[in-house]
């Protein structure tokens, strides 16, 4: 008889630890930390700091995926928000800049939400529209250039620090808490999970499934725009051509590594963020390793498969199966 141990999160925690250990092995100073200009400095901080855009994206993405949807446009929304923020940064006060960027993100999310919830277009194509057009809109704002700014306020969002922690980390943590409060502090989380688990049954139970779907895309747009602002603040400029490029795939990957099914239903915010950190820990490790860049994708493929296989419920079955097989063998 087996005891039921809480398995949720175990696989992710193990994967993260193993990857950090491998990082340590390829780069002995991996865990070194020191203070530089009032800011903590070290590879671990890099993992957290560089992981923030994907972590933020995955916070929104995990909700969308929980309803059984998907949002391919997050990378493009990042670019639009970054472009908006950068082009306003030197003329407007920070609150206006942030509000404008986040407002644009909300609008993008609303657009996606309407296509999916009201026009009932399949999420992957519905958001593909904004994925394609959105980057165009961002480039339209910047006219294809990298729009730079000097506003120290906005720069501080990207490069400042609170208690030694870089601002992006602080913001992402804050956003995780806010999202958790919104989702778990109200009934939203349950209703989203119900909608994703069985939309028809939920609707027949009186759940406003359309409103649920609409709201998750809006939230996803918001998270993406925040990520866009941070990315722009980080390089003190909006690179509409490249900001957030292909990050939608990383965000989806993070969510799945975090154990949320692409078919919708149960989700975990913390594990989605953990997924983002796993990906970033791997990326940073690759950069530290000194292997030629031609190998990057191969390493990524192998690690992703390994992490997923470790989580597969079938692996347990298989080991039990082989154990039984051995036992029954004469």
């Amino acid at each position, binding site marked *: 008889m087996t005891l039921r141990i809480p398995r949720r999160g175990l696989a992710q925690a193990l994967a993260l630890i193993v990857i950090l250990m491998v990082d340590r092995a390829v780069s002995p100073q991996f865990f070194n930390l020191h203070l530089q200009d009032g*800011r903590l*400095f070290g590879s671990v901080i890099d993992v957290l700091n560089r992981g923030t855009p994907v972590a933020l994206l995955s916070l929104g993405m995990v909700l969308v995926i929980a309803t059984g949807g998907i949002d391919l446009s997050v990378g493009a929304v990042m670019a639009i928000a970054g472009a908006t923020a950068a082009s306003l940064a030197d003329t407007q006060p920070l609150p206006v800049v942030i509000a404008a960027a986040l407002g644009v993100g909300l609008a993008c999310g609303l657009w996606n939400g309407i296509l999916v919830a009201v026009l009932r277009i399949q999420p992957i194509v519905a958001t593909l529209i904004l994925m394609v057009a959105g980057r165009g809109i961002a*480039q339209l704002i910047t006219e294809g250039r990298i729009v730079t700014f000097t506003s120290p306020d906005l720069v501080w969002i990207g*490069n400042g620090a609170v208690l030694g922690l870089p601002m992006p980390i602080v913001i992402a943590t804050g956003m995780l808490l806010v999202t958790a409060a919104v989702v778990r502090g109200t009934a939203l989380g349950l209703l989203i999970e119900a909608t994703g688990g069985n939309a028809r049954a939920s609707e027949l139970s009186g759940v406003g499934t359309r409103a649920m779907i609409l709201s998750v895309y809006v939230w996803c747009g918001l998270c993406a725009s925040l990520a866009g602002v941070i990315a722009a603040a980080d390089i003190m400029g909006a*690179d509409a051509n490249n900001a957030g490029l292909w990050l939608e795939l990383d965000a989806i990957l993070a969510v799945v590594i975090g154990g949320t099914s692409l078919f919708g239903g149960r989700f975990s915010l913390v594990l989605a963020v953990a997924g983002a950190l796993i990906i970033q820990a791997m990326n940073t490790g690759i950069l530290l390793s000194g292997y030629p860049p031609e190998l990057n994708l191969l390493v990524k493929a192998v690690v992703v498969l390994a992490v997923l296989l470790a989580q597969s419920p079938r692996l347990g079955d298989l080991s039990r199966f082989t154990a039984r097989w051995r036992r029954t063998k004469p």
Partner: protein
Amino acid sequence: AELTVGFSQIGSESGWRAAETSVSKSEAAKRKVNLKIADAQQKQENQIKAIRSFIAQGVDAIFLAPVVASGWDAVLKEAKEAKIPVVLLDRDIDPSGKDLYLTAVTSDSVHEGEVAGEWLAKTVGGKACNVVELQGTVGASVATNRKKGFDAVIAKNANLKVVRSQTGDFTRAKGKEVMESFIKAENGGKSICAVYAHNDDMMVGAIQAMKEAGLKPGKDVLTVSIDAVPDIFKAIAAGEANATVELTPNMAGPALDAIIAYKDKGTTPPKWIQTESKLYTAADEPQKVYDSKKGLGY
């Protein structure tokens, strides 16, 4: 009669590319040429489609900024059959297609790498110097060539050594991220003597990373990169960058001149119109260059 020229542009992956597009437009307007630009979004198949549709529309000439060197023979043959002259901009194609185009207005990206390398060799002198390299997108021909040219110079100077080389995908953000890791991996950056970046955007990101790590780019760490976009001149003026190799965005100007002469007088231009790969350093009045380049659409 007014000429119509179809221009198959690669995309808008960088500020340099945007500048090339906008300079091409203004050069065409100057010469009263009707320029049709088809943006291929970085895809060769889109460029081929665009060329086919230019042929179908019966344009007078086609400009092509090829995203890769190979694979143009078939479509260029079609253009030739339709008697539409083709001019290559910015990059060359494989030798097999030599007689399929009229002329190529390009810079030599291997040479750009060499210029960068030679500047570094000269500046360092005989001192030992560990170089870190920020490569462009893996597989992009420009990245391959700029690496090739630079490596050739390094090989000739025993004191120079590339200790780390990673891709920064030609972007600022990745340039910064990769540089951060280089700094950690190279003893807080103390053992890095110079940074070579395949384009200026990555260098701008790398400079930020160095500053945040408490290093002094331009002084503690030498920098050399390629493209000569306005922002790098700002950095050079501020003493945070040392050198850049220019890749002029004005490829369309000479190309248009060649086409107009060819159409009007039947003069065949030379097979290769090479643009200059000029090196800029702090000695070249960077602030002034910055001001002159600012409005070009970078």
